[in-house]
């Protein structure tokens, strides 16, 4: 595949997009793991949400 004389601009565009999308995905995955961990810690200490208490 020949990207011609402006290959640098094309490669930079794809690299930047890949970087931003990868950063978004990493942020979402790491944030989910962090929230699950904190929720697990709180529940292990016997803290429950009001909604669960009223359901029971």
């Amino acid at each position, binding site marked *: 595949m020949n990207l*011609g004389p402006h290959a640098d601009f094309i490669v930079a*565009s794809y690299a*930047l997009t890949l970087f931003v*999308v990868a950063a*978004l995905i990493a942020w979402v995955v790491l944030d*989910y793991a962090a929230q699950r961990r904190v*929720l697990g810690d709180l529940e292990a200490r016997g803290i*429950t*949400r*009001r909604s669960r208490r009223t359901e029971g």
Partner: protein
Amino acid sequence: MAVIDLANPTRFLALVNRLLPWLWATTAILFVVGIYRALGAPDDYQQGATVKIMFLHVPSAWLGMFGWSVMSLAALGTLVWRHPLADVAGKAAAPLGAAFTFICLVTGSLWGRPTWGTYWVWDARLTSMLVLLLLYLGVLALYWTAEDPGRGARAAAILSLVGAVNLPIIKFSVDWWNTLHQPASIFRMGGSTIDPSILVPLFIMAGAFTLLFVTLHLAVMRNEILRRRVRTMQLMQAQALAEAGA
């Protein structure tokens, strides 16, 4: 499950947990096909190989505007019905819309240098997209700096509705003003002016980007619901400790 049931965060979470693996997989497949077709597309007769940047730039531009549309609809849910999931949806769309607007601006700039001879001009289309990015940053600042999350959400919702005025300005800027940015070439009266060998990969990439946005949006909404649960439980824990100490 009725649609109204999704207004319940617990049921919404259950549905999202079931949907997300399928959405991630479909998004990945669509990107593989889209990038394969995009890189294999012929050079444009005027732009040459730089037309390959359009497969990133155009979907990002659409999603930058789509993200703000989602926020505006969510703002109605926050201000009119005061539904917590509406605020979650609006808050989740803001960083995603900002990221895609940023990609649109930078890839457009990288396309402009070899094509127009400049990275930037204060053209109506480019400037209105930059204003969109600044509006996104404003909404994010409101969410991140408000001491009271409820007041921050209402302020962000008002800014989302006011900022929606910018969407038709972006769309019609190339018609209303004499701009360096080319006029509409995909969705226009009389049909697209783009050859199918480029238009088809562009639509596949647009589908892949849109599915990525939807997938990320649901995932960020899930995280935000969990974060609010954590906050509620931490407040309850603090309250219990205060009562035990009193």
